[in-house]
Every structure is written in C-alpha cells, then in structure tokens.
C-alpha cells in the first residue's frame, strides 16, 4: 500500500505528518512512502533524510496520483480536494462536526476519510490519540512562550542585588495541556496554581506539586471524564475563588475546552483590567473562541499593560517533536486499521467506527 505525505499548507504550520524514523517503520512493514517535496523542512527534516531511509520524494501532483492513503495534519482544503481521486483514503484532523462542507466535498469525490480528532479516548487508543500528543507539547510551549514574553523571571532568587520573588502562574483547565503547563512552570521555579471544573483534577494538580483552587462543583458539570458546559452559578463561584490569584498572577495559561463546543469564557475583560501591569495571558483555547474575552487568535492584544496572546500554534513551534509524535500516532493508527497491508474495515470495532467519517462516498458520522 502506498502512503502519501502532503506538505501542510496552512499559514504558520511547521509540522509534517510523518518523520523519517516512522517512515522507515512503514517501509519495513511493506508500505511504500511518498513525500511531497520539502514537506519536512520546517520540522528540520531534509528531503535527503527521507530519501536515505527509502522514501520517495515527489512533486505534489505525483503524491496525489500515486497514493492509496493521503496523510495531512490539518483538514484537507479545496485545493487538496481537487486532486483527490475516487477510492483514496484521507487521514487528518477533520473536525467533522464543524466542517460539514468539507465532509460533503470528500463524499462527493467518492473517497474515504478518517478523522483523527474523533479518536475515542479509551485506554487502547491512547497511542493513536493526536489530541493528547499535541496538547501535551502545547502545554509546554505555552509556558516557554509566557516566560519569553514576560519582563520577569520565574524562579525565586536571593542575590546580592536583592531578592527576586518567584513568578505566580495560574493555569485554567487541568487537561493534558494544562498538566504539562503546570509541570513546566513548576520546573522553572514558579509558584503555580490551577483550577478545573472536574474535581478529580485536584489530586492530579497536587501530584505535580502545584496548588489547586477548588470551586464548589455541584456535580452537574462533569461527564464521563470530560467537562460539560459550566452553569452560570459555577462561573460566578469560579471567579470568586480564582480572582485573588488572577490579580496577582504574572502568567496565566488557559486551556479549558468543552469537546465539540465553543470554549468557555473564564476571564472577562473586566477581570483583565484588574490584573497586574506586565502580566501575560496565554490563551491556548483561542481557536475555539478563547477562554479570555479579549484574546484574538494568533494575535497579541495589550490591555491595561496585560499581554493577551491567543494561540494554538504552540505545538507548531516545537515542530520537530510534534511531527515525531504525530507520525507515531498515525503509524499506530494505520497499523491498527490494516492487516498485512490491507484495510480490515472492521466497522464493529470502536476505534474504526468512531474515526471513519466517510466510507466510499457515504457519510457515516455527522
């Protein structure tokens, strides 16, 4: 079977969906690998790195023409779709719930499409879960970005020229990204606090040595390990509990999401106005509308001396690692779906069922 790797076309995207190491693993399993020219350059993989392990470097058109499976990280766009042929299998993050047009376009091409973001969060799917692997890096990079943007340093330092107090970091949302943000800020010596709507995250926060700010949760906000939308009452209680820390914070990282919905607003403009001069907010939920009222995606907004940075680009900026992990997820996924180089189409099986959005032009999930 032939796997085609497309160069990402989205602006600012530096990742690639396959790394040389994983490409080699595919080849040793009997797959053929086609890489679009310069696809890996921004992740510091040269064309020669791929060539050396036996993959073919090809022009875009050739990759589309030759491949059985087409791989991308970001959703296929109109330009891509023009080149897709009947029967090809497309794999990427499709966000099918919000991208109905795209799904219909794929179906109209009589192609098949798997969406990686639809991966069920069950134990055995963990090694195929790109959300986890990418959010993890996002959490790390968000803190590095914050440290870079701040005019203060993180650690406590008692020096001959006086004492530098440790920076205070506040993390909203203790999911995958939030935990890694906590861990990274902690490592750098900051005083870290965090809050989340799911009460089990208290112990997790503390397991990283940080402090958890508990907000009374009336039990209705969490569901099967995921957050539901918070009630108004909860939002008020959260503000009351967190404000003191927020107004003293030097860095705030927000990661709160509700699957399939707009991200909740956790920091209003009014709150931003009461924050410390020089504070920085990194809003990792910006692509889902943002956790901070004033944040704009991929923009830095300065309000009352507070820098609000709306971003999702965090994993892109650690493209090498991000691509490696993404590639490994993809590899595990494709190996799971196939047997001896042929798709099994076991539609009873949970992972296949949940991720298979379009099969041979028929839309299975909406």
């Amino acid at each position, binding site marked *: 079977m032939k796997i085609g790797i497309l160069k990402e076309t989205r602006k600012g995207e530096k990742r690639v969906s396959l790394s040389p190491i994983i490409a080699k693993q595919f080849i040793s399993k009997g797959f053929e690998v086609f890489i679009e020219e310069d696809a890996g350059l921004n992740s510091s993989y040269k064309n020669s790195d791929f060539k050396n392990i036996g993959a073919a470097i090809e022009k875009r058109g050739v990759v589309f023409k030759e491949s059985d499976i087409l791989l991308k990280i970001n959703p296929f766009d109109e330009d891509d779709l023009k080149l897709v042929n009947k029967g090809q299998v497309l794999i990427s993050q499709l966000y099918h719930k919000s991208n109905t047009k795209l799904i219909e376009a794929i179906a109209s091409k009589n192609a098949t499409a798997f969406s990686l973001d639809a991966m069920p969060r069950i*134990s*055995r799917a963990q090694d195929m879960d790109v959300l986890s*692997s990418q959010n*993890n890096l996002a959490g790390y990079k968000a803190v590095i970005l914050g440290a870079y943007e701040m005019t203060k340093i993180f650690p406590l330092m008692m020096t001959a020229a006086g004492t530098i107090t440790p920076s205070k970091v506040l993390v909203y949302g203790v999911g995958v990204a939030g935990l890694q943000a906590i861990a990274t800020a902690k490592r750098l010596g900051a005083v870290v606090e965090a809050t989340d709507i799911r009460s089990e995250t208290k112990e997790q926060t503390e*397991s*990283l040595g940080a402090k958890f700010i508990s907000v009374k949760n009336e039990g209705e906000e969490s569901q099967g390990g995921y957050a539901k939308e918070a009630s108004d009452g909860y939002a008020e209680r959260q503000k009351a509990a967190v404000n003191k820390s927020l107004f003293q914070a030097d860095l705030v990282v927000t990661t709160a999401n509700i699957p399939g919905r707009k991200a909740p607003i956790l920091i209003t403009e009014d709150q931003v106005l009461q924050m410390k001069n020089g504070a920085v907010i990194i809003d990792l939920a910006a692509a889902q509308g943002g956790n901070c009222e004033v944040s704009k995606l991929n923009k830095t907004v300065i309000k009352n001396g507070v820098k609000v940075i709306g971003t999702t680009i965090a994993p892109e900026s650690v493209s090498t690692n991000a691509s490696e992990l993404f590639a490994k997820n993809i590899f595990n996924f494709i190996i799971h779906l196939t047997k001896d180089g042929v798709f099994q189409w076991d539609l009873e099986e949970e992972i296949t069922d949940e991720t298979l959005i379009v099969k041979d032009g028929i839309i299975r999930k909406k």
Partner: protein
Amino acid sequence: MSVLLSVIYLIATVTFVLGLNKLGHPETAKKGNLIAAFGMGLAIIGTVFIHDLEVPTIIYVLIGAAIAIGSIIGWLIAVKVEMTKMPELVSLFNGFGGASATLIGLVEFSKNVDNTMQATTIVSGIIIGGITFSGSLIAWGKLNGSLKSVIKLPQHNVINNLFFIAVIALAIFMISTGVYNPILLYGLLIGGLVYGILFVLPIGGADMPVVISLLNSLTGIAAAITGILYNNMVMLVGGILVGSAGIILTIAMCKAMNRTLTSVIFGSFTASKDISGTNKTLGSIKNATASDTAIMMNYASNVVIVPGYGLAVAQAQHVIHELEEILTGKGVNVKYAIHPVAGRMPGHMNVLLAESNVDYSILVEMEDINPHFNNTDVVLVVGANDVVNPAAHNDASSPIYGMPILDVENAKHIVVNKRSMNAGYAGIENELFYNSKTSMLFGDAKAALTELVGELKNM
C-alpha cells in the same frame, strides 16, 4: 557432675546465647545457627558419655539407636521438604519437643516424686509439654491444609478459659495434697493435650506463625522446668532463653502484622482487617512488611522499579531516588520501567523523576524493559496499577484490553506498594495482586518507601 561436663554445658549455654544473637542479623544468621547447633551437639555427646553411672551396654545401644533414628528422620524431612512447607515443619518439630518433655515427666513421675518441688516441676512439665504437643500438631495441620476450617465452639473463649482453670486446679490439688495418683496424672496429661487443641483450633490460618512462635516459647519453658528437676544448667538456661526470646519474638511478629497478641489469641472471633485481601474469584493476597521487602531487595541482583500515578500523588520521587541510590550502593542493578501512560499526563514520570535527579540512563521504556523482566529478581511497583494489569493481555472484555503493559509477572518476586486494594484510573480489579509471586506493601508511597529505605540502611 564432672568438671568436664560442667564446662561443656557452660560452653553450650554460651553458644546458645551467641547463636541467638547472630540469628538476629541477616549477615550472621547462618553462622549463628551453626554455632548453636555445635553447642547442642556438644551438650548431647557430653550427656551421653560423661557421667559416673554404671550403664549397661544395652542402654547405650538404645540411646544410640534413638539418636540415630531421630537424626536421620529429622534430617531427611528437613532436607526434602519444599521451601514453602517450612513453617509447618517447624510446628511439627516443636510438637515433638513438647512431647519429649511430657514423656520425661511421665517417667520421672513414676520414679522420683519426693517433694512438692519435684512434683510441681514434673506436673507443670507434663501439662506444658502436652499443650505444646497437641497445639503444635493442630497448627501443623492447619498450615499444611489438612485442617482447613476454623472450628469454633459457641462461647469458645469462655470454655477455653474454664477448661484451663480446671486443669490448673486439678494440678494444684494433686500437688498440695501430695496424692501422686497416676490416674490423676494421666488426667492432667489429657487435660493439657485437650487444652492445646482447644487453644489453637479457633485461630485463623494467617495467624498461625504467631501461634507457633508462642508454642515454641512454651516448649522452651517446659525444657527449663525439666532442667530444674535435674538441676541441669544447660537445660535451664537454654530453655529460659528460648522461652523469653520466644515471647519477645511472638510480640514482634504480632506487631509486624499490625495485630496484638490478645487479638490473635482471643480476637479470632472478631471482624477481619480493614484491607480485605480476598476476592472470590482471584484468591487471596499476601502482605509484605517493609523489612521483608528490604531483605528481598538487599539480596537481589536486579531490581526494577515501576513508578505510577501513586508515586506522584504521594510526592515520593525523592525517596524513591534515595532507595535506588542505596540499592545501587549495595551493588544491586536498579532500573526504572517507564510505561508510556503511567501517571496522568504524557511524561508524568519523567517530570517526577527528573526532579529528584534520577539519571536518564536508568529510565527504560516499556518495549526495552519487557524482555528484561525474566531476569529480574524483584519488581517494586509503586503506586501503579493499570499499567501492570495483566487483564490487558488476558481479558478481552476489559476496558484496557489491547493496551501494552509492563510484564512484571515474569519477574521472580513482585512487591506492590499502594494504599489499599482500590482500583486505578480504569477502575478495574488487578489480578496481579493475587499472583502467588506478588506481595502487597500497603501504605502511602512516601511513608512506605521511607520505611523501606530505613530498613535497607540498617542492613
């Protein structure tokens, strides 16, 4: 008594003390056992040959035959029996010792009851010997499985105590009246035997070692009493040593099991412990103490530590590093097995162990360590659960089925530290805990590891 025999007995006594002392330290225990055995041999040979009695050859032959038969049988049993059957063997041997004391008493009763003093010693020897004999046999039966159920009469405690008082009353009556009636004596003997049975029957199997230790201590006292009868120092001192050391040991064993002596003996009727270790389908679990674990690790060549979420919750990363350093310092080869999803975030264990400066080179990924477990003496699982759950391999209905796990079952011993039998993230039972190679070291990871480190330092 001749000078020589006096000196021999003195030497034997000294070997007993030294032997017991050395038995208390792992490094010297073997030597201690040999020293005491040597002293015992000396005392036996001395007793047989050094005296100024006119003894007919036939008696010598009989003694020789008895010693030869007993030695050979004892040796064979001891060498042949499986390692796991040793505790019950100790119980059996102990019973024999008690029986021997009883028999001596019976013979002496027929010959030498001149005064209250002698009567008292003989009678108490017979009763105590009887209790140990029957009690030990019951304990033996319980341990080797032939006596399975815990048998309790209604109001067992009350009956027990009344019975015991009755036997004592009878003994006192006999001694004080001076009516040394053999029938009464056999009555007492039977009384002792019955009480031994009554005493041990209701006690649960897990408490047997404590009971054996207690009975063992009683045998020592029986020997000492016989020593008073013969004014024989080695018996007296040796017996008392065993008696007092045995009591202390019994108490120590109770402590190690988190029980009191009274709760073992009388409490057998009350509820079982908090941490229930029995599961209808999976069987029962084995508890380990910190010092069990410490000894196991101290004498291992390869140890693998499996950290999990509980390590992070307990914030025990510094202690585990200390443990690793101590073991390494003792020449043990230590590695950490890092499961890719241990903890609650990717790289959770890495963050944790980097904080305590664990060397990157001894953190081993799952795929690389799995083949290595065959070769591992002890695996210490600290606050991990799902990542070592064999259900991932065996149980297609399990939510973690298909997830790769750390194959710790392949190691020679597995010690699991967690606070309770509670499940982990996936919320499922873990049959690893019921594996015969597994022992559970219950407690918060930080506290338990600190204790473990303490024990290892003292070795």
